[in-house]
């Protein structure tokens, strides 16, 4: 390849995006302090319903990717990315990526003139229903394997999908299945007969996981064949690209908190942040975070503008931002010393989310493999 793309991406934030950030951050500061997230984990509920209601009903964040005529805000991937940055900074326990990004994008890939599609889309956009795309969380764009669910001619679905994020709290499941006429995408009500979710104990407690078991569950077909496949793939690509912004937000919090703490913590008669052994590590992380911002903005802008370059932008963003989030969270724990190892300090929430996010929607190595094909750097 190597072609250079001539239309420059817009890597900054617009005034509207800044205003959206201010609103989301104010809400999260008020309702989602790290101590509140820790307390929420003990309740065992799949997400914080009051926070979700405020984020969706008051701010309208779940409808950003949905056109106004379909019940959304008519914004786009750049704005959703700003919301995800803030949710990452707060390691917020809400199903935004699952419902407002993955499920919404999958529905947008179907025929939205049909009521079976437009109906649930409007529900998801308003945040009244939580929807999930029923695929294992580590699924990368470009190659969801063969569907593990079969559909019969009457639309009854049978099979098992492992490790689906936010499934336990969802009202609507979007299920890729192998139907009588090939691949198809079905809508399944989570409360219907024949639907069972088996919650797992997740590494990242702020993003619940469950196996979904379908035993003759009633499904409504949303799309068939290539259209279904494309809708799922587009959802995964959008999810992976915007996940980079969540990872940016996680890393940003970890670095800020580490700088603040090491500037105050005194040992050997001076703030530990004055030692070069520590400050050089934080300076290196700063460069990582600054770079992650450019990569994440580029992916969001490419998705928003539907640039032909978007697959490269997304793989680059995931391959870069996932390890930055993990490294920053790991350094956050280490540079905090003993307090960073306690349950009481929120650093572990960020470490667990960062490590889970690294696997989500394709680990960095998968994205690099995909990149090799996209930029003509073939394997031996």
């Amino acid at each position, binding site marked *: 390849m190597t072609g250079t793309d001539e239309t420059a*991406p*817009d890597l900054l934030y617009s005034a509207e995006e800044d205003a959206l950030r201010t609103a989301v951050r104010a809400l999260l500061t008020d309702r989602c302090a790290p101590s509140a997230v820790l307390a929420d984990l003990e309740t065992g509920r799949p997400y914080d319903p009051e926070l979700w209601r405020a984020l969706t009903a008051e701010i309208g964040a779940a409808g950003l990717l949905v056109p106004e005529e379909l019940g959304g805000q008519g914004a786009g991937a750049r704005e959703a990315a700003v919301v995800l940055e803030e949710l990452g900074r707060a390691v917020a326990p809400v199903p935004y990526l699952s419902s407002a990004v993955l499920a919404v994008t999958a529905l947008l890939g179907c025929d939205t003139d049909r009521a079976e599609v437009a109906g649930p889309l409007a529900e998801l956009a308003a945040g009244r229903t939580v929807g999930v795309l029923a695929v294992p969380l580590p699924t990368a764009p470009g190659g969801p394997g063969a569907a593990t669910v079969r559909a019969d001619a009457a639309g009854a679905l049978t099979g098992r999908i492992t490790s689906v994020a936010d499934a336990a709290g969802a009202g609507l499941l979007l299920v890729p299945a192998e139907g009588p006429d090939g691949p198809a995408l079905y809508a399944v009500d989570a409360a219907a007969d024949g639907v069972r979710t088996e919650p797992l104990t997740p590494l990242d407690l702020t993003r619940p996981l469950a196996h979904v078991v379908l035993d003759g569950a009633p499904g409504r077909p949303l799309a068939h064949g290539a259209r279904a496949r494309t809708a799922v793939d587009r959802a995964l690509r959008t999810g992976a690209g915007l996940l980079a912004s969540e990872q940016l937000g996680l890393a940003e919090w970890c670095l800020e908190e580490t700088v603040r703490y*090491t500037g105050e913590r005194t040992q050997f008669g*001076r703030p530990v942040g004055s030692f070069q052994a520590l*400050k050089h590590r934080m300076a290196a992380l700063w*460069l990582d975070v600054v770079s992650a911002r450019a990569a994440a903005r580029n992916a969001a802008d490419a998705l928003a503008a539907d640039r032909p370059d978007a697959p490269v932008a997304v793989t680059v963003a995931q*391959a*870069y931002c996932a390890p930055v989030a993990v490294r920053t969270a790991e350094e956050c724990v280490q540079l905090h010393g003993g307090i960073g190892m306690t349950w009481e300090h929120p650093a572990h929430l960020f470490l667990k989310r960062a490590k889970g996010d690294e696997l989500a929607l394709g680990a960095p190595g998968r994205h690099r493999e995909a990149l090799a094909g996209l930029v003509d*750097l073939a394997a031996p």
Partner: protein
Amino acid sequence: MSDAADLRRRTAALLAAHPVATTDRLDFLRARFDAGLAWVHFPEGLGGLGAPRALQAVVDAELTAAGAPDNDPGRIGIGLGMAAPTVLRYGTEEQRRRFLRPLWTGEEVWCQLFSEPGAGSDLAGLATRAVRDDGGDWVVDGQKVWTSSAHLARWAILVARTDPTVPKHRGMTYFVCDMTDPGVEVRPLRQITGEAEFNEVFLTGVKIPDAHRLGEVGDGWRVAQTTLMNERVAIGGARTPREGGMVGVAAAAWRAHPELRTHDLHQRLLKLWVDAEVARLTGERLRQQLTQGQPGPEGSGMKLAFARLAQQLSGWEVEFRGEDGLTYDDWTLRRPEGVDFTGRVAGYRYLRAKGNSIEGGTSEVLLNIVAERVLGLPPEPRTDKDVAWKDLPR
């Protein structure tokens, strides 16, 4: 104050009065300087018109289109980028009039005498002495190093110690040094690449008239800050295309030599490709911020990323090339006019890139700058701030 239309008119008038086809190169450059079209943000009478710096592009575009000669900026970079802004800011009216015109036209090349064998990262510790004689002029003794263009230069900007009895930052003075003085000896400094881009400069009883002092006696550190700040101003200019620079060299090698590919090298190349693309985007984001008038602190980090990438990619390439990686093109002592980091062979690129994390501020010093000035982390305790320079351990 000039606007773009006015500058176009003035440029057209210059071209009309001094037709490119029939005017001697130097005469044209002098006329351009006198018309205020050399650097439009400089004051009138000193090659400028007091116009916004961004409008220089308007003049340059018109002159390029007309086929006018330029002043070969690559050859006189230190004069243009470092000496000129300092002379403008701290020079007397007489000094500005004497030095700036031949500096800009390239009639007089400038070099920089700052670094010393004993003063690298800690530039303020420098030991070259300037002592005042009975007539009020100065006699300089010492040794400077890493001086590019010293063998071509007519003038040097020089920082020397004039008072060793006060703390180091306060006892320095800034001078313009005549490189043709018999006490100046220039020797090539051979690098690990075999060539000599730079020089060592030995100063023995060099005479500098007090009229060639820039700024007050003892104020040399402050004057030098202007010079050093301008060294880093140039970031954020042109956009880099994808696969520009060292990553393009590595990717081209990979594509050209399927027989040399291994899985391990593939994995590492992909990682470096991603890092290079993200560094490019980070530079692009910085450029967009500057264009919007919101300069970010990203610039401080760009050199760190550039140096690391250049080193890793060139090291990767030597390994990738196998038997060819074991050979080198030429170890003879060359004296190149400029430097091309991506030129010559893989071994040269690998060795030259080692300098990228040392020249213009080591990566360790840049990490300190990011940590203390960007992140606001507390500084290391200092033992040298309030001690007379002569009492510091050396």
